[in-house]
């Protein structure tokens, strides 16, 4: 299995590429397990974005891993002991695929039976995510936003330094000589963006939603940056705009909740957003998913820009 090779490999570059393979396997597994929304997200995040971030870290830290001095026996003992306990725990779990296991008895059956009538949204994952579990999702969105803020404060580079520094640096657009890659990705990028928008706005009826669309859109932007360089990307967008959009998404989500509060209902109760409750739910879910999509796109892209920008700034000859 891939994971054991990752453990044994000393070359970090190879193990990161294997991480991509592992991500692809798990995405296919999620699709096989009927979790189509999760598979979409894992495909965009686990294969594309996380590998790129790991690789850009590696370009700074070096790919060779030193042989560690401590003996791994103690770790092995701990791992086997914990593993044995966990496997012992699985004997009490309900058999895989059973329809009567406790996980399906509580609120899940309510969502499956009632949510279509209450929200009119065919994709149950979307309606649970944005409407029934709106508080959780808002919390997760704030976590993503906070992580983005943390990375920006750790790896901040000024806009000016980035712009003046790119022209002579070969690292900025490493793909300028690869014509096939450039042209193919130039053709693909608009379609990836269009697909992201489809995933965003079609989430009422099919698999999709703000998280997936954000990840796909961000990977299209990252592909553009990889092909044409940071300079070209910063010509069409800027870090302050990205920060603005990251905050705007969270505000859109939170503001939707406040609108329903102003009409003397519970926070994030979308029923009151329109005269008809179902229309209100539709509108609320649309707005909230849009907020999620905007923030996820902005934060993921900002992460990438922070990483590459910081690296470039360090390598700049003084």
């Amino acid at each position, binding site marked *: 299995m891939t*994971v054991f090779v990752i453990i044994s490999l000393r070359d970090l570059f190879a193990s990161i590429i294997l991480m991509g393979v592992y991500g692809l396997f798990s995405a296919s597994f999620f699709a096989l397990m009927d979790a189509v929304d999760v598979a979409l997200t894992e495909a965009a995040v686990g294969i594309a974005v996380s590998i790129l971030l790991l690789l850009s870290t590696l370009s700074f830290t070096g790919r060779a891993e030193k042989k560690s001095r401590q003996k791994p026996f103690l770790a092995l003992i701990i791992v086997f002991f914990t593993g044995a306990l966990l496997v012992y725990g699985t004997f009490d779990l309900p058999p895989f695929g059973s329809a009567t296991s406790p996980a399906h008895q509580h609120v899940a059956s309510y969502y499956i039976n009632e949510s279509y009538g209450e929200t009119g949204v065919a994709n149950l994952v979307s309606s649970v995510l944005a409407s029934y579990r709106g508080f959780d999702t808002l919390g997760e969105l704030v976590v993503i936003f906070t992580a983005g803020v943390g990375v920006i404060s750790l790896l901040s580079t000024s806009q000016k330094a980035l712009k003046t520094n790119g022209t002579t640096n070969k690292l900025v657009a490493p793909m300028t000589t690869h014509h096939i890659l450039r042209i193919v990705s130039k053709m693909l990028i608009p379609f990836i963006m269009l697909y992201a928008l489809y995933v965003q706005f079609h989430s009422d009826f099919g698999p999709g939603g703000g998280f997936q669309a954000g990840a796909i859109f961000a990977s299209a932007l990252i592909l553009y940056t990889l092909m044409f360089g940071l300079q070209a990307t910063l010509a069409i967008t800027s870090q302050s705009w990205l920060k603005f959009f990251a905050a705007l998404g969270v505000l859109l989500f939170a503001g939707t909740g406040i609108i329903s509060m102003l009409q003397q209902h519970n926070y994030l109760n979308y029923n009151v957003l329109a005269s008809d409750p179902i229309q209100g739910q539709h509108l609320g879910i649309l707005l909230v998913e849009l907020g999620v999509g905007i923030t996820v796109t902005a934060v993921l892209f900002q992460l990438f820009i922070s990483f590459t920008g910081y690296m470039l700034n360090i390598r700049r000859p003084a």
Partner: protein
Amino acid sequence: MNVAESFNYWAVMILMMSGLYILIAQGNLVKKVIGLTIFQTSVFILYISMANITGASAPVISEASSQTNLLFSNPLPHVMILTAIVVGISTTALALSLIIRIKRAYDTIEEDEIHDMDAQ
């Protein structure tokens, strides 16, 4: 205990323990982040396995499914894992940016070397 009934759970445990082993035994910080990601994904797989019902379909209601009264997989774990994946990448990015700062400050990302430097 039928093997097929809990094969998924055991595979998850193996993955989880591999991630834990990397976290404990490897000194390289980037490798530790990789281990953490493996651990994280194994938890995702555990949740998604639990949501699955044999013979059920993806939780999207359509005309055909409302007529035939199909079984659906549990949508709730899907929602949790969906958000957890994106939160996971953000926290991984935070960890990686800390690693970059550590490399800048200590000029190494091997744990034992950092400890030696701190001891001096």
